[in-house]
């Protein structure tokens, strides 16, 4: 029984490790500036995790394999209540390893979240709603038109409540897809009309909740041209699973002329660009 259990524990351990090592199911290739650093931190962490997991399971299996009850009369286990030296040793080692890991794990976070978007970032307003994304572009003047919840009218396709009387609004566009330039910091101003949603693009290694009543500013830099899937990662109601959007990362030579286009042509042009770039899924 003990040997069988040990073998099962070892096989499960080996298969579990294999599932990660084979990388058959793995992250999609990263497309953001912070992605490689995040992936590196993940690899360091998974190494610590894998070694600890393996060592603990192998150790557990070994004890189970070795120390069976022999059934012989008078054959007794080791009478010990422990060892303070060992307790101190493993407490210190794990504390050092885990806390170093925790501190290392803050670098990407700190670089992304502890300061505002760098100057010259391209800003897009994101207004999520049950079950659709609205991306608000400032247009040529780089100034967002005024919005007001009182002006929202889904029926008239004014999804984010743009105020038509605001002169800054004239060149603004609202689209269901996110179009951003490559290799340039992008600032998203995240809002929600109704419930909490979450902006999630797996290859971007980036996620942020959109909370009604708040405007949350986050920033990142995409480094690879292409079209990517965008999902909602916070339960937002019945059709949460269908809240799919697209993020289109464009080279400068396509993005700059696009940005200057007036509203209607901007929309048309984005449509044709979305058709041009295939969706990259891994």
């Amino acid at each position, binding site marked *: 029984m003990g040997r069988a259990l040990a073998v099962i524990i070892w096989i499960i351990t080996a298969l579990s490790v294999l599932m990660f090592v084979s990388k058959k199911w793995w992250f999609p290739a990263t497309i953001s500036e912070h992605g490689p650093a995040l992936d590196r931190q993940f690899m360091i962490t998974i190494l610590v995790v894998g070694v600890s997991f393996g060592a603990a399971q192998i150790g557990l299996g070994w004890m189970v394999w070795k120390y069976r009850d022999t059934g012989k009369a008078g054959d007794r286990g*080791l*009478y*010990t209540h422990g*060892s303070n030296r*060992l307790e101190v040793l493993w407490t210190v080692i794990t504390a050092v390893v885990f806390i170093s890991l925790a501190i290392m794990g803050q670098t990407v976070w700190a670089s992304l979240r502890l300061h505002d978007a760098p100057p010259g970032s391209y800003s897009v307003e994101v207004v999520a709603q049950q079950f659709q994304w609205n991306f608000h572009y400032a247009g040529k003047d780089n100034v967002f038109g005024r919005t007001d919840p009182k002006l929202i009218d889904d029926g008239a396709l004014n999804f984010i409540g743009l105020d038509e009387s605001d002169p800054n609004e004239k060149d603004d566009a609202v689209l269901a897809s996110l179009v951003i330039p490559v290799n340039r910091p992008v600032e998203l101003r995240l809002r929600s009309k109704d419930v909490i949603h979450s902006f999630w693009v797996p290859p971007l290694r980036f996620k942020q909740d959109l909370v009604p009543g708040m405007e949350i500013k986050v920033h990142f830099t995409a480094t690879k041209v292409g079209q990517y899937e965008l999902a909602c990662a916070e339960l937002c109601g019945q059709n949460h699973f269908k809240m799919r959007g697209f993020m289109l990362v464009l080279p400068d030579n396509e993005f700059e002329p696009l940005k200057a286009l007036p509203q209607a042509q901007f929309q048309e042009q984005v449509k044709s660009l979305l058709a041009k770039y295939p969706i990259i899924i891994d």
Partner: protein
Amino acid sequence: MATMVTSTKTVTKKSTGEGSKFPGPNGNGSKRNGHDFFDPESRANRYRIGMWVALASITMLFTALSSAYIVRAGGASDWVSIAMPRVLLFSTALILISSVTLEVSRRSLKDSSLDGYGRWLLLTMLLGLGFLASQLVAWRQLARQGVYLSSNPHSSFFYLLTAAHAVHLAGGLLALIFLWVRSRLATERKVTARGQAAADAVTIYWHFMDALWIYLFLLLFLWR
């Protein structure tokens, strides 16, 4: 692990197991042989510990509600401070006095004066009822001004916190009634240890409700 010494120096100690000898560092509960469910001292300890533990949990409830209050007051543009209904000063006076009367009642019990105990208990109950009535008047006054539960965050918290406190105080009132009825029904006109323990526990609770009210009162009308 190889460095570990596996042999054990057996420091033998004969446990004789005589009743008089205390086998462990802690006999716990009573100083007699272990605890005894019906032992008066054990019971008093139990009531006291239980009461403090319950108060810890009530403290957490009001801590949670107060932190919600502070967060909500800090970030809100829709905060409208409500005017303090004057009758709350009367409520405060009533509950402060009730703590004193209950303390007198408890001490009468300690001095084995069952009559004094009952009388002061009755007075405390009336003061407690008065407090609840006075809180109700405060609600009515606010409602007459058109300030309701959902009017604005300050009024929401006012109704919520006063109601939560009133529910807890009403529980205390029920306990007082229970003590009073039992003191009336007691066939032998003498103080039982059990009655004393219960009175002590209820007194702790009542004083706590008093302090809690003062805290809520200050929170609601100083932090706004």
